[in-house]
């Protein structure tokens, strides 16, 4: 039974809508702040139905957003459980339905889960606790002030008598929830769950191999699909031997999908592809579908971007760099005059390649189409835009589509796009059967929306006292039309802007037909390498200790600039000093020949990170990273220390893996790499210890999925310079660059 209990409307903007649903002998409580005007001036989004207390005491908490390995299925419910005051062992966690009207935005991206939910979800728990207290007070005929809780129980303070939450669950149906904005929250010193390491909720399933991931889904009568797309992004199907594919045992259907050849050039603010042209093969097993696919002999139509190549892009970038930037995004002081008057100047060109996300679980989706309604089980980071994309592409109403969020085997931004979802939906409708679409690894690597490549042409100058006085950057970046391609932009506030009197940033767009999109710490994962390496170059030009040079550059103000572009210079100085102490930076001169330490720092995703890498480079140019130290400032509270440390260590090693190994190159309009054989990832023998320290500062906690990655790369390249005197200005690092 579900019913709405609307409290009397006080005013249109202030009315609180309470949804209470009493299910099979249990209670679901939640609340929704209704009304647009209200939602705008209120940090709380409409909320609803996170907590269920069953009469037997079983507490179920819904996890709002998809888990792709960043740990939110555990961390978000921990916030609720803490304030609800239950033992974590007694909590059952389930995924929430995709329902943005009730839950607000449900996505995994931008390291936003912590900053968006730290306050909100604790209040969800606290409201539920207050209702249980009120129910007990009514039963005991006392005031709520006479009651408190211990995990799972309401306690009558004067007498010490207790009632379990389960015994109060039904009575809560007649309790009006308190205002979430003013409900009291626990003092941090009383936390029993938050701040204590909790293993991921799904650990038992992971270590025993139970069905869990997108690729593990199964529906009655389900068929398996594979979908081949053109190597040249967006090329149409000219012909395909569908009959040959259908002749393979087990193949049930083979058909051409017209798709939209421009599906990978989304409008501003959109992420990733829609339905691209291709050929689908559907069979009673995935292997049969693959065998059918191998017989298709697809001929692809000519496509203008077939002439593209990585070498061509690099040449074009150089040509563009010779002229003035097409757009000037910043011009402080007089850079040219300052460079003329500088004691030392440095000029350098930096470049970085396209990267693939390479989620270990290839893209996949299960879809079922029945009576005009579509149901999908998708390992997506971004369910609602996927629903909208399916609605638009298949001509359905969004309300006729249900998206189930299932665990993704790695996200890294790849699954913010929903191309695999719309493909599965289309194929299921055509095949008239539930379908599990699984991309091959080769499909996955050749049809990514890649971290954009980029080219930077920099000049910098220091004065006689070793102060950085001028810096200019001409950034050549992929574009689709006018603006930068997805994730190919750069903020006008990019550090060290605002810390240097003369700064000029120019941008020249370079149109190209390669799909791009966000990869873990988008933008930052490349810009940190460029700017932190160049600053290191300038420190050496000035004859200064690079860490001291950065501290001086950061000045003495605590905050520079205004939100949302405010930069906590004091917080950055704090992590820089800490990492210097942790790593024994002052003693780095004692390292043997061929070894060195480098430092990098970066602010992204609201987190301040400084990192030192210690490397050894052999005469044949092989790099061994011996250790990385990380000092992090993400505010006053680490919610789940177990997950937090894992994220930081993983991010650092991910950054090293990118810098040491990874690149996607384009030839004849297509990605040249197709599997882990030619797109290697770091393996265990290369993984170094990563020592992490979280500084506690008096700021609200922020996220950890991304911000540890960017500074790892310049820490590495700067360490290589310290070890060898060779400056890495393009990625990935190859032994040839470093041979003695």
């Amino acid at each position, binding site marked *: 039974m579900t019913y709405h209990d609307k409290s009397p409307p006080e005013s249109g903007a202030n009315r609180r809508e309470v949804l209470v649903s009493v299910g099979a002998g249990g209670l679901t409580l939640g609340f929704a702040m209704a009304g647009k005007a209200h939602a705008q001036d209120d940090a709380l989004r409409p909320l609803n139905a996170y907590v269920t207390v069953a009469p037997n005491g079983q507490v179920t908490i819904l996890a709002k957003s998809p888990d*792709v*390995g*960043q*740990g939110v299925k555990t961390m978000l419910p921990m916030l609720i459980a803490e304030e609800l005051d239950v033992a974590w062992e007694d909590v059952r966690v389930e995924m929430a339905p995709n329902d943005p009207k009730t839950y607000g935005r449900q996505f995994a991206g931008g390291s936003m889960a912590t900053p968006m939910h730290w306050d909100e979800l604790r209040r969800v728990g606290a409201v539920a606790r207050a209702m249980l207290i009120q129910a007990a007070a009514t039963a005991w005929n006392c005031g709520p002030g006479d009651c408190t809780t211990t995990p799972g129980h309401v306690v009558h303070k004067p007498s010490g008598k207790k009632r379990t939450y389960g015994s109060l669950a039904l009575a809560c149906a007649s309790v009006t929830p308190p205002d979430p904005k003013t409900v009291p929250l626990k003092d941090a010193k009383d936390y029993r769950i938050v701040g204590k*390491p909790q*293993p*991921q909720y*799904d*650990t*038992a399933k*992971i*270590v*025993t*191999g*139970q*069905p*869990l*991931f997108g*690729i*593990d889904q*199964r529906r009655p009568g389900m068929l*398996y699909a594979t979908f081949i797309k053109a190597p040249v992004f967006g090329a149409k199907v000219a012909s395909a031997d569908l009959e040959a594919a259908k002749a393979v*045992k*087990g193949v049930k259907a083979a058909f051409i999908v017209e798709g939209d050849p421009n599906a990978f050039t989304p409008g501003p603010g959109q992420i990733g592809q829609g339905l691209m042209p291709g050929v689908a093969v559907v069979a009673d*097993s*995935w*292997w049969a579908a693959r*065998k059918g696919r191998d017989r298709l002999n697809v001929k692809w139509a000519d496509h203008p971007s077939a002439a593209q190549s990585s070498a061509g892009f690099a040449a074009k970038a150089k040509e563009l760099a010779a002229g003035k930037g097409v757009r000037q995004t910043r011009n402080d002081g007089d850079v040219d005059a300052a460079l003329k008057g500088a004691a030392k100047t440095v000029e350098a060109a930096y470049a970085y390649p396209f990267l693939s996300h*390479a*989620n*270990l*679980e*290839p893209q996949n989706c299960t879809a079922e189409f029945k009576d005009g309604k579509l149901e999908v089980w998708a390992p997506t980071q971004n369910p609602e835009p996927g629903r909208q994309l399916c609605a638009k592409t298949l001509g359905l109403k969004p309300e006729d589509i249900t998206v189930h969020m299932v*665990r993704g*085997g*790695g*996200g*890294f931004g790849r699954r913010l796009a929903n191309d695999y979802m719309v493909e599965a939906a289309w194929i299921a409708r055509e095949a008239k059967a539930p379908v599990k679409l*699984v991309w091959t*690894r080769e499909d996955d690597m050749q049809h990514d929306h890649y971290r954009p490549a980029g080219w930077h042409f920099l000049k910098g100058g220091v004065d006689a006292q070793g102060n950085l006085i001028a810096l200019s950057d001409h950034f050549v970046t992929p574009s689709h039309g006018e603006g930068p391609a997805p994730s190919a932009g750069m903020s006008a506030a990019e550090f060290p802007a605002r810390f240097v009197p003369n700064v000029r940033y120019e941008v020249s767009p370079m149109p190209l037909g390669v799909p791009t999109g966000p990869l873990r710490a988008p933008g930052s994962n490349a810009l940190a390498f460029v700017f932190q390496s160049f600053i290191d170059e300038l420190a050496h030009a000035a004859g200064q200790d690079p860490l001291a040079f950065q501290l001086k550059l950061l000045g003495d103000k605590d905050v520079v600039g205004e939100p949302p572009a405010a930069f906590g210079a004091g917080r950055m100085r704090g992590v820089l000093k800490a990492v210097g102490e942790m790593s024994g930076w002052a003693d780095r001169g004692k390292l043997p020949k061929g070894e060195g330490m480098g430092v990098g720092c970066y602010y992204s995703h609201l987190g301040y990170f400084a990192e030192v890498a210690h490397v050894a480079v052999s005469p044949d140019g092989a790099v061994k990273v011996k250790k990385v130290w990380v000092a992090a400032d993400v505010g006053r509270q680490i919610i789940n220390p*177990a*997950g937090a440390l*894992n*994220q930081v*260590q*993983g991010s650092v*090693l*991910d950054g090293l*893996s990118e810098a040491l190994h990874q690149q996607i190159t384009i030839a004849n309009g297509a990605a040249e790499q197709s*599997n*882990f*054989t030619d797109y290697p*990832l*770091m*393996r*265990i*023998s290369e*993984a170094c*210890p*990563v020592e992490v320290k979280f500084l506690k500062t008096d700021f609200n906690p922020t996220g950890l999925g991304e911000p540890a990655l960017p500074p790892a790369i310049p820490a590495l390249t700067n360490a290589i310079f310290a070890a060898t005197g060779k400056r890495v200005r393009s990625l990935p690092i190859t032994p040839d660059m470093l041979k003695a």
Partner: protein
Amino acid sequence: MAYTLNVNGKALSADVDGDTPLLWVLRDTLNLVGTKYGCGVAACGACTVHIDGQPMRSCQIPVESVGKAKVSTIEGMAANPVGKKVQAAWTELDVAQCGYCQAGQIMSATALLTKTPKPTDEQIDEAMNGNICRCATYVRIRAAIKRASGQKEA
């Protein structure tokens, strides 16, 4: 054609083409989805199973070549005394991030510890280098292997 396989001590039959890789027979036909597909070319280790106790990449084994060999998968590891210890260490140290590689990691680690109960770092590198973890949980994988083998973790 119908093949009878010995999987986790049970006789299971699968009516598939002989060239179908064991990986897909396990996943699609026998509904044992713990064994994962990552690359299909023996480059990632996500599909690792034990064939007569040896760690093997199931994406490379045509089902017709399995014969009477004993196949063990992640679903059978709780019944293997070493596997059970490895799973416990993985749980205690909260090794996983996304978790997708971890079945393969646990299969490789169990095979390693069965043969080499107290592996050195070099032996760990050698036995585990075929298993990619895209989330780079390597620091914890190493620590969990040490813990499962009763050695100091760092």
